[in-house]
């Protein structure tokens, strides 16, 4: 496997968007400034799901998922297990169902939103189970799923063309 820069453009873009997630979340939350509500930004998740939808037959995506998950977990949480397990799991699930999903904007948006909801549920389970945070069901919906879905719809609409073009032009280890 040769190391060519063009193969690494999408992974770099995904990592960069993962870094932007935290910064946008911080700045947007302080601009909105409505009590303790944090604006959850999942730009990386959008790109990652689209990557797996566009090329559902690339097994190397699973290693990419582990790598990205590890870096983002260490960066934001300080422990390994949230992104590190969720991203590979989603790669596996999307590979199974991708053939059945039409390649339209709307269907891909729906897939991203389902993954987004699953991500919130996964965090709800992991954080509560390991005592990292105590999250109530009400908080899960009003502070997690609802704002996350709204932000994801907006970001997906804004970045859809960018992601799809980038993924098609610079696929990860695929000619």
């Amino acid at each position, binding site marked *: 496997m040769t190391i060519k820069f063009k193969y690494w453009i999408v992974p770099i873009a995904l990592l*960069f968007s993962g*870094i*932007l*997630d*935290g*910064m*946008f*979340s*911080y*700045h947007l*939350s*302080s*601009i909105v*400034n409505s*009590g*303790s*509500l*944090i604006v*959850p*930004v*999942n730009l990386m998740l959008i790109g990652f799901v689209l990557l797996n939808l566009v090329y559902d037959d690339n097994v190397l995506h699973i290693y990419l998922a582990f790598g990205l998950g590890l*870096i983002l977990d*260490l*960066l*934001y*949480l*300080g*422990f*390994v*297990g949230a992104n*590190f*397990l969720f991203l590979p799991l989603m790669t596996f699930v999307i590979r199974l169902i991708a053939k059945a999903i039409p390649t339209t904007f709307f269907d891909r948006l729906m897939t991203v939103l389902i993954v987004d909801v699953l991500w919130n549920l996964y*965090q709800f389970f*992991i*954080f509560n189970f*390991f*005592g*990292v*945070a*105590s*999250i109530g069901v009400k*908080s899960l919906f009003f*502070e*997690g799923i609802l*704002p*996350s879905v709204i932000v994801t719809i907006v970001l997906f609409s804004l970045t859809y063309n960018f992601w799809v073009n980038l993924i098609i032009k610079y696929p990860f280890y695929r000619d």
Partner: protein
Amino acid sequence: MKKFLRNKKLLVTLVVLVLSLTLITVSVTWKNTSDSPNFVQKISNDTVAIVSKVVNWPISAIKGGAATVADLMDTYEENNHLKKKIDDLAQTKVRNTNLEDENQQLKDTLKMKETLTDYDMVVGSVISRSPNSWSDIVIIDQGSNSGIKKNMAVMAGNGLIGRIVEVNHTTSKVELITTTNKSASRFAVEGKVNDKDYIHGIINSYEDKTGNLLLSQVEDEKGVKNGTKIYTSGLGGQSPKGLLVGTVKKISKDSFGLSNVVQIKPATNLNNFSVVSVIIRKVAGE
């Protein structure tokens, strides 16, 4: 049992599940018990922080510019208000200097070097935060190179906002006082009720609905009035004494109706701050 062992898919799923849970358990325990992150984590976080700082610069500049315009609109009123305060301030400053001198002389007489109230500050900026809604962690642009260590208290504006939970070379993670993390260290605080009496307690949790911090394990809340200022007590060996936490807002019963819980209105906005001060206590902890 034989039937179960023959079902390879189920067996693999079970093994993966057990391994995953073990990985998270080990990782969370490591995070809570270790004084500093491992080498790989430090390098990874510091590298990512360089990108964050570069990208954050124009965003902060734009946001700062907008805030400056907003501030300019209020300048006239603010100026009048501040003019009235200047006379008071000059008098307070003189009194403060005298008290400081007197305090130093008394310390010299008692041969005391440092006390619980002595501390230094390292000022830093927030560069990012955890993008999910529940882990109350922000990342600041100061790390071990500036003398920051795990568990140091962090202030923003007038009040306490949290403590350092992870230190890299050039960045640190701050866990906010609003956290619901069950293994987070809590702040020991006190408030002066009258000339003689103090109340002591521990900041135990945060109420989303009211935006107040909840003070529990209060020995005797008699005499506590609304508006009583609550400070860190310096007990526990981590933070210095005298950092303002907030003011008493209300005293209510806990969910079981057995003991009183003192609600504290935080001294600073816990959701909107960009500059923080890490407090380096001069007296060593345990």
